[in-house]
């Protein structure tokens, strides 16, 4: 007998599946066949699903969050020009372009490493098989993987702020002073690659099934868009402690308070509120701040003197990418020089 979950799955399969089939058969498969790329047709079929899911997610997020930002804005801006570049980041990330590049560049390496490990008897953990019949139930497994990946995400995020050269890349994300729901994907491409490699490897090690990885990515993406939204939306006292809210995350983006390396002018050393989806880790490791009043967002160095140094973080996509690399190299060079001096 079918369970309700089975029926939901079948209805979803019908709707999504028809779109996936049409796009694949009409647009993708002929290209694969023509260019003798049929060896990757399974991957391409999955890629179409990523693309469609990303497109659907963007449409839904826009449909829900844009009116919310218009009706109940937290900050009122004269225009949304600064937000436009974040739309480009979102399209690049969520329509699967990054995944496509990573597949062709990193998948052979990942497979090779896995083959090497398997030959030496080192297997994946497959967390969902810990308790057959219980942990391998789709919803239970989904929750387990969500919590484990979120825990890893918390520490990954903390390191992005703590390791100086890494922070200079991550600062691309934080340099948006008009924080909107589009800002989640505003990241340096190198940072995106590092993050994708880390989480793909972790997912592989702990055994996240591919279908759940899609679902986890979609849920995570939608919630993170909400966190960045420019809206006065309260989750309430309890809700704020269960799920990262826009207020909680906006404080993480606060200039000189939520995220920066420096610890002057009342800034918190390495910041606060690092949680990706769950604020539990911030509470557990004492980095949560639920009380401080909201402040403007951005990076202190962007501000004109005397508050900052008036540093240019770039207005366009390529400027942000190039300047990010330049800052990273400067930081690495500075660290090397200081090490030489101290030696």
């Amino acid at each position: 007998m079918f369970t309700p979950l089975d029926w939901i799955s079948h209805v979803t399969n019908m709707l999504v599946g028809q779109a996936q089939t049409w796009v694949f058969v009409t647009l993708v498969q002929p290209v694969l066949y023509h260019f003798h790329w049929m060896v990757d047709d399974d991957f391409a079929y999955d890629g179409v699903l990523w693309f469609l899911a990303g497109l659907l997610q963007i449409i839904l997020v826009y449909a829900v969050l844009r009116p919310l930002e218009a009706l109940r804005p937290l900050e009122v801006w004269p225009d949304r020009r600064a937000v436009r570049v974040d739309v480009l980041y979102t399209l690049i990330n969520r329509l699967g372009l990054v995944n496509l590049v990573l597949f062709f560049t990193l998948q052979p390496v990942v497979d090779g490493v896995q083959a090497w490990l398997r030959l030496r008897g080192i297997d994946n953990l497959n967390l969902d098989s810990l308790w057959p019949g219980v942990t391998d139930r789709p919803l239970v497994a989904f929750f387990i993987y969500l919590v484990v990946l979120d825990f890893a995400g918390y520490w990954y995020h903390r390191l992005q702020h703590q390791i100086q050269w890494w922070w200079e890349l991550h600062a691309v994300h934080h340099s948006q002073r008009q924080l909107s729901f589009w800002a989640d994907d505003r990241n340096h491409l190198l940072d995106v690659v590092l993050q994708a490699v880390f989480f793909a490897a972790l997912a592989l090690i702990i055994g996240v099934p591919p279908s759940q990885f899609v679902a986890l990515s979609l849920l995570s993406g939608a919630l993170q868009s909400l966190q960045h939204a420019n809206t006065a939306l309260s989750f309430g006292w309890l809700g704020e402690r269960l799920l990262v809210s826009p207020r909680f995350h906006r404080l993480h983006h606060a200039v000189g308070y939520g995220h920066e390396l420096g610890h002057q002018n009342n800034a918190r050393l390495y910041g606060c509120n690092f949680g990706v989806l769950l604020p539990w880790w911030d509470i557990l490791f004492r980095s949560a701040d639920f009380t401080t009043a909201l402040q403007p967002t951005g990076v202190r160095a962007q501000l004109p003197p005397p508050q900052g140094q008036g540093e240019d973080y770039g207005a366009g996509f390529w400027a942000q990418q190039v300047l990010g690399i330049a800052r990273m190299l400067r930081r690495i060079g500075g660290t090397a020089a200081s090490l030489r001096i101290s030696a």
Partner: protein
Amino acid sequence: MRKLVWMVACFLLAHAGAARARDDVVVVLDSGDARITLIDQATRQPIGSFATGKEPHHLMATPDNRDLIVANAVGGDLLLLNPQTGKPIGSVPDIPDPYQIGFSPDHRWFVVNCLRLNRVDIYRYDQGRFLLARRIALKSLPSHMAFTADSKTVYVSLQDTNSVAAIDLPTQTVLWTMKVGDTPAGVWLTPGDKTLLVALTGSDAVVAVDPRTRTIVKRIVTGKAAHNFRSLADGRHVLVSNRVSDTISILDMDTLTKVGDITGLRPGPDDIELSADRRWLWVTFRFARSVGVIDMRTRQLVDVIPVGKSPHGLYFYDRAPFYDNLPPLSTLAHTAAAR
């Protein structure tokens, strides 16, 4: 302890309404969903669905026909089902990357094509136990396999290097490899092991290889993205699915010619099964989340049954003999038991 956990798990699954006990089910592997869909063969309606391991792609019965083995490629294990009811009855852990699996006709060897890991693992099969004999690194993407009737050689297609490898089973060594064409997938031996047919998924043809001289003797145009074989069980004809042209071609193994096409199918026909009476041909549509039933009298698609994502392998108990160069597995098992 592990066995106990499995018994409990199987009990829970069996009593959770996940799989109704029937003796005429069709087992479909939804490889993209990591699930199995069970279909009532008579009504052609889905009757259940349950989680298997990660990326189940192929399945086959054990030589004694007592268990149906589902190979979970990413899960790295084998799930054992009752072949008649589809109910889970056990598992075999630590079989890395079992993408495609096969028993040699004498039941001594269990061969695993590890597609992702670029290996062919050969196990000795001993009364239900799988004992690793050798791992053979083979670049790259080993996918399908075919055994000679004497169980001495297994031919493996290597999708990424456009070649086929011949492996000597007694010594577990690679005898030779040869280029055959763009993205080879299904491999098939004609009666008497005379000709090795190789389906080219990157092309529109099946190539006929003389394995003794290692030469391509003929190229048979079938349809775009020829992929997988299935015997028509008449000793003369074999079917091949064409994943891009959405057809199934009928090949004459004597003349090495195409003698017909089954058209009007859904996208991505892949694995094929034939009912024991040769009337109904079941096929998974890899890119259409469905399974089709073809009436072989009219060669028309008469039913489409929705299943999960990327349905790949399918199986039912009461089926026509699968191979052309070998007697049915059940007969072999009977002979082996008598010996």
